[in-house]
């Protein structure tokens, strides 16, 4: 971080030397760490020429909590409880990523009940995350109403989670070896009610925001990132798919029961803000399709295959597994030295890579576009810093 700041100071000095009476002066503003549309404590140093953005330098580290380091002093079962704090909008999927790594290492075969419930939960989580993103995107565009619509519908899923899991945001449900509890008796009925309720509401989303001419003007052809750049940055998830790369771990490296369900991977055309918007809206539909296929087919079976009170010890070696969160690929890399605590845990979080695409796409756009682009990346700042 200090490297970035010092180079920034050099750049400011160099610019002032170039100043001539005829040229306009470029200036730097700090967007964040406290700013309404950086979604947390992301700081971006923005070089502006009037309204035009010349350069964006994200400065990270304002919410760095050392979660990876903390993992070295926690058992595997305990570390799962850290993962819902990295990307709080995909808590269950993060749980799953760590659990999957442990299960792979301990060579535990899961039964269908666990796998199907996990998949349903993950897809509900994806819908919920995209609902919130949709609302926030509307708000960043200056329309306040979508924010509350998004939250209104998200609340229903949150209530479903609360009934089964007990928590609403920082959920710990998926555990190494299975699930923490069985699903609530109402779960299936309420999920089906939600699907019935939400389908017409999604149409409402489209009429309220997607079809609006002002929004179309704001997002079409804005912030274009081609597939090559997206791959070179390491972007994943909807950001990469919007650029036209059909990369979805649920298809490429299926886990859970994704290989048994029928769904499509929506892919954008040119990688502008509209494609990123469209891909996420389509993903909500696909997630609903997956849940619909699975909700009536939950077989009987045990929901926990490991003894819960016993410390998990993994055999010596390195283990890696990855899942597709609403924002992209979350990889969990574990180095085990045979003890009950990992020697090293590394998390490959999607937002850390995705955020750098803002530096590629933002130059020579306006300040308002910068907000649109940042919002279309759907960053969760704790996930960047961990």
């Amino acid at each position, binding site marked *: 971080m200090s490297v970035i700041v010092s180079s920034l100071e050099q750049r400011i000095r160099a610019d002032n030397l170039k100043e001539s009476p005829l040229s306009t002066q470029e200036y730097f503003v700090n967007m964040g760490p406290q700013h*309404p*549309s950086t979604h947390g404590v992301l700081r971006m140093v923005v070089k502006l020429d009037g309204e035009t953005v010349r350069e964006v330098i994200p400065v990270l580290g304002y919410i760095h909590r050392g979660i990876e380091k903390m993992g070295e002093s926690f058992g595997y079962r305990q570390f799962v409880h850290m993962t819902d704090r990295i990307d709080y909008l995909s808590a269950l999927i993060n749980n799953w990523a760590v659990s999957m790594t442990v299960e792979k290492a301990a060579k535990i075969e899961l039964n269908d009940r666990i796998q199907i419930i996990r998949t349903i939960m993950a897809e509900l989580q994806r819908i919920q995350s995209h609902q919130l993103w949709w609302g926030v995107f509307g708000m*960043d565009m*200056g329309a306040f109403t979508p924010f*509350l*619509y998004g939250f209104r519908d998200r609340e229903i899923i949150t209530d479903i989670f609360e009934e089964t899991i007990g928590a609403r945001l920082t959920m710990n449900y998926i555990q190494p070896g299975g699930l923490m509890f069985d699903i609530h008796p109402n779960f299936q009925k309420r999920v089906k009610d939600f699907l019935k309720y939400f389908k017409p509401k999604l149409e409402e989303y489209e009429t309220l925001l997607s079809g609006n001419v002002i929004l179309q*003007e*704001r997002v079409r052809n804005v912030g274009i990132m081609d597939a090559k750049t997206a791959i070179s940055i390491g972007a994943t998830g909807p950001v990469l798919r919007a650029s036209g790369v059909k990369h979805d771990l649920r298809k490429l490296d299926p886990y859970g029961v994704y290989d048994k369900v029928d769904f499509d991977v929506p892919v954008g055309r040119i990688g502008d803000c509209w494609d990123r918007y469209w891909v996420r809206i389509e993903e909500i539909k696909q997630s609903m399709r997956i849940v619909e296929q699975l909700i009536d087919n939950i077989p009987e079976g045990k929901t926990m295959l490991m003894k819960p009170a016993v410390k998990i010890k993994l055999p010596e070696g390195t283990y890696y597994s990855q899942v597709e969160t609403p924002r992209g690929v979350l990889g969990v890399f574990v180095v085990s030295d045979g003890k009950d605590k990992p020697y090293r845990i590394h998390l490959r979080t999607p937002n850390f890579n995705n955020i750098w695409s803002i530096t590629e796409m933002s130059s020579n756009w306006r300040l*308002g576009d910068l907000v649109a682009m940042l919002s279309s990346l759907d960053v969760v700042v704790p996930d960047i810093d961990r």
Partner: protein
Amino acid sequence: MNWEIKTVAMFASEALREGYLGAAGYIILGVVAIAGFLAVLGMVLIYAERKVAGHFQCRLGPMRVGWHGVLQTVADTIKLFLKEDIVPFQADKVLHILAPLFTLLGTLLVLAVVPFSPGMQVADVNIGVVYVTAVGGFGVLGILLGGWSSNNKWSLVGAMRAGAQIISYEVSATLALLVVVLFSGSLKLSDIILSQEQGWWIWRAPVVGLVGFVIFFIASTAEINRTPFDLPEGESELTAGFHTEYSGMRFAFFFLAEFINMFIISAIAATLYLGGWMPFHIGGLDGFNAVMDLLPPGAWFAGKTSFLIFVLMWFRWTFPRLRVDQLMRLEWKILLPIGFVNLIAAAFMVMFGWYYGN
């Protein structure tokens, strides 16, 4: 029907013949009436906005303070009164303090000529339309000064946006106003209302009236910085734009001016295109007109204005915000050419008498 226009200014000038004291009394009455109206209207509008927003967003809005939250704005005002008035370090203190007053002054002065009903108007200036445009433009001065004096780059960006936006859109708004001036043949607001006794200009002047009304309404929305043209504030972009560094009562002045401006443009649009306090008349249908006259003119004015205010709130809670260059494109490439063509068309229509009820 004979409408008798009475204004406070008329009473004052009559009283002047007998002595200064009576005239001064009337002037003070006018000023107090406007100031009181300003405060009450501000609170009512803020409450209305919050309620409308609440119901648009599937919630209830303020509910706790008083019956259905009617005292919420009173409580908020008291809070703003008690808040510390912060002037940023190295800010231009004098301008920083003056800026919100300038903005409020602009709106206050326009209120003086708004015709509420035949007997309720502070002053009926014979160049009313020019006065409204000239004095209404005063608000931008306060915004520019506020942004400049705050010593904050975000504020300055907001202020520059406001300056460019308000000055640009004033052109279109004025062109649209001129359409009605052409048809009614007067700049005096009471004359313009009286000229609509046979019907409102929005439909009496076929197409041209409607186009003029739409242009005026859009341009005025931009002039008062409301969504979708709220770039100077641009909450998600500039945090709060030109009033980022304002707190307490000075912030309240900006806020109040914004809401009063909303009333003013609705009132002016209603006056010019929808007949102001004039009841809905159709030239020739005397029976129908008599029925319409049963409702007092003040109620007609209030109804039309509140409807337009509601439309403005509707805009705000539905539309996203435009971008800076799109904003300028909308004005200079779309609204302005249409406005000019509309004005020329109106001139021909007036010349040949091609309008309804001529």
